[in-house]
């Protein structure tokens, strides 16, 4: 068991270095120069341009820049943003709670709704209910996030007035400190009446939009895994023993059917963070996604590199954790292969 863990951990390190290298090179392959972007039509005399580039270390050969960057990273320094001059790590940590809060809410929604839907569809296999639900899940899976978000804003927020259009809080009513960066927690800490409900209210639409794709995936996965399990001998045995359908499905089958679903949830974290970029833009959600888009348009290398590396690290770690959990649930993986 320990050997398995150690092996998986060690594999993570080269993956990580390769990732840093890829990000570093890819960003620089995109045409555009951070200094030029900054200057615009106003032009700038070549001497000053060279000086600015030198200050930013952009005049060094690429390999030197890369080694310098690795050295910096080794010291936990992600550099400073070219547009705001603030430390990249600091900016990331300020904005990340918003993304995390949104992602967790979306995932919770996906799990809480997706698994029951999958189970019911499997149990009522072939029924109108099953076909309807699965049809909806295909629709959910293929829904372009941008369009879905705008649709909800137009209907739910604008036409029916059931939700705010965007943002995380009603700024006119509430003005309090946000020490943790998680609006749901901070609103409770603030002790202001209605703040928590308001934060929840603001979270509603973005979480639905972001949760739709994972919800569809989880529902489908649960259904197919459940169908497989339901045809196993031990389920038939349990039924033959005269156990109630609820106990058969809920205890015997579901527990085993959830194993692949856990994997899917783990893999969805990456999808979720990618979807967060769009969702945050549509709902003006002040998270990492929005920040990365700004960094791209400004060719803000340090922010872009730092942001992508930190997010990828997170995805890698989550996948590692999923592998480990999976190994614990299903010991065959530890010993076999």
């Amino acid at each position, binding site marked *: 068991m320990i050997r398995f863990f150690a092996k998986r951990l060690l594999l993570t390190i080269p993956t990580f270095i390769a990732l840093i290298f890829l990000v570093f090179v890819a960003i620089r392959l995109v*045409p*555009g*120069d951070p200094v*030029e*972007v*900054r*200057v*615009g*039509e*106003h*032009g*700038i*005399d070549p001497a*000053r341009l060279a000086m*600015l580039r030198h*200050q930013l270390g952009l005049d060094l050969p690429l390999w030197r820049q890369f080694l310098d960057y690795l050295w910096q990273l080794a010291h936990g320094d992600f550099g400073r943003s070219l*547009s*705001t*001059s*603030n430390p990249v790590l600091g*900016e990331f940590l*300020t*904005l990340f709670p918003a993304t995390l809060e949104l992602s967790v809410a979306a995932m919770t929604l996906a799990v809480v709704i997706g698994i029951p839907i999958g189970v019911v569809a499997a149990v009522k296999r072939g029924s109108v209910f099953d076909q309807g639900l699965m049809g909806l899940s295909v629709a959910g899976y293929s829904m372009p996030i941008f369009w879905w978000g*705008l649709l909800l*804003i*137009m209907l739910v*927020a*604008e036409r*029916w*007035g*059931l*939700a*705010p*259009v*965007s*943002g*995380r*809080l*009603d*700024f*006119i*009513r509430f*003005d309090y400190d*946000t020490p943790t960066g998680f609006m749901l927690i901070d609103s409770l800490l603030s002790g202001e*009446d*209605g703040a928590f*409900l*308001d934060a929840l*209210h603001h979270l509603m639409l973005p979480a639905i939009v972001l949760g739709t794709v994972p919800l569809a995936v989880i529902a489908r996965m649960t259904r197919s895994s459940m169908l497989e399990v339901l045809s196993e001998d031990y389920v038939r045995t349990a039924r033959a023993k005269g156990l109630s359908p609820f106990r058969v499905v809920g205890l015997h089958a579901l527990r085993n059917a959830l194993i692949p679903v856990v994997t899917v949830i783990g893999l969805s974290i990456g999808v979720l963070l990618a979807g967060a970029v769009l969702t945050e*833009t*549509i*709902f*003006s959600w*002040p*998270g990492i996604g*929005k*920040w990365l888009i*700004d960094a791209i348009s400004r060719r803000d290398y340090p922010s872009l590199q730092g942001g992508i590396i930190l997010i990828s690290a997170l995805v890698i770690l989550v996948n590692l954790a999923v592998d480990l959990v999976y190994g614990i649930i299903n010991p065959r993986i530890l010993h076999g292969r």
Partner: protein
Amino acid sequence: MTLHRVLGLGVATLLLCGTAASAKTLVYCAEGSPENFTPALNTTGTSFDAARPALDRLIEFKPGTTDIRPGLAESWDIAPDGKTITFHLRKGVKFGATKGFKPTRDFNADDVLFSFGRQYDPANPYNKIGGGKYDYYNDMDLPKLLTSIEKKDDYTVVFHLSEPNVTILADMAMDFAAIQSKEFADAMLKAGTPEQFDQVPVGTGPFIFSSYQKDAVIRFKANPNYWNGRPPMDELVFAITPDPTARYSKLKTNECQIIPYPRPADLPEMQKDPELTVQSQPGLNIGYYSFNATKPPFDKKEVRQALSMAIDRGAIVKDVYLGAGQQAKNLIPPTMWAYNDAVKDYPFDPAKAKEMLAAAGVKTPLDVDLWYMPVQRPYNPDSKRIGEMMQADLAKVGVNAHLVSYEWGEYRKRLSAGEDTTAQYGWTGDNGDPDNFFFLLSCPDGKPAQNNATKWCDATFDADLVKARQIADQAERKKIYDEMQVIQHDNAPMLTLAHSVVFMPMRKTVTGYTMSPLGTHEFDHVDVK
């Protein structure tokens, strides 16, 4: 009652319970987050807008115009040689107090010296803070022009110039020239957190900064002691909303009362909405099509004139600007005081164009490169589409235009080096001074300047440009600029395409908002009924 009505009622009740606050709040749905709150370090309008409520300048622009008026400087004298400007500062002006800083003294000359000193004096402790790049200070040529700033007494500051230049007065009204509190700077330096200085704008403006959450919200409170009268609103909130569709939605639901940069496609609907008003104004910009006057056959003015007549600008403004543009006949927009309305625009006349090309000895078909910009700019919403329309028009007079483009930085570099034959380009004005547009066609020492995309050089035009800078009298200056617009029109170094029209949608309840031709957003006099 349907389900959603029931839910809606519930939510409405919930909201009503909470809206007991009596403070008058104006919510402006801003398009983005500021880079920081020190305008001297910034280059984007978004950042300037965010610091502007809290900061004043020595000179201000009169609302809705590009004319200047006294700000923190009550008056100024220009010495007869034009090289010394003495500013007399306003007395009794208070700085706003923010979290963690209580000002102990009024605004005075030290704050002026500090705010400019940071930008030019390497010995200033803040010179290197925040990246130490002062783009506008440099772009306005101040390192060359401004030799020193001297404090005569607490309320008198003297600017010494290397040569007479009145455009510096308009520069002083620009955001980079904002006056920040030296006392606050000293306090932050003493606390060992000088970076904090750029995160909190402490100035003498109509509003006092209270808090900022990145990418979410900036809050201001009215400055009760504002020297120019307390603003009508108690609170000003910038709700940062980057997506134009979301901004429009929030305007409709009254989550914000005023929004910048609407999508042109949404405008017809906005203009029909009985709850909204849409103000509009020509932007302080120009999109143009430049001819490289150093390359044949564009070294002949008849050829440039012919091409100017071959292109249907009316169609371009209609199809590409979607009504958000105004056909241009001069380099400067009509909102500027130096605009010469007597200039007669080139008509769209392909037959005449063909004739003129033949008369100029141009053999058709003539092959030219037509550069289009890879980016959208305020003055040019879709350069490629415009290029295609020009291509079609030019083909009709026997000119084969090949569309060419480069990455934006590369595009500007090559254009500046004169590698193009014809190219689309443009300019957004900085300070409302005509010089800030006409210098685009300058050629100091007979060589086209870096920003001169046309590479056209005209001795009279250039001499006029220099002369106009040294004259303080506006009427005298206008005479010179009038003449320059005629020279420019006759020589046609570029075909002026359009000034974009800027729109500002707001709720009907908003009063007192004046659009600025400079594109800044100001809320000093705004009230909400």
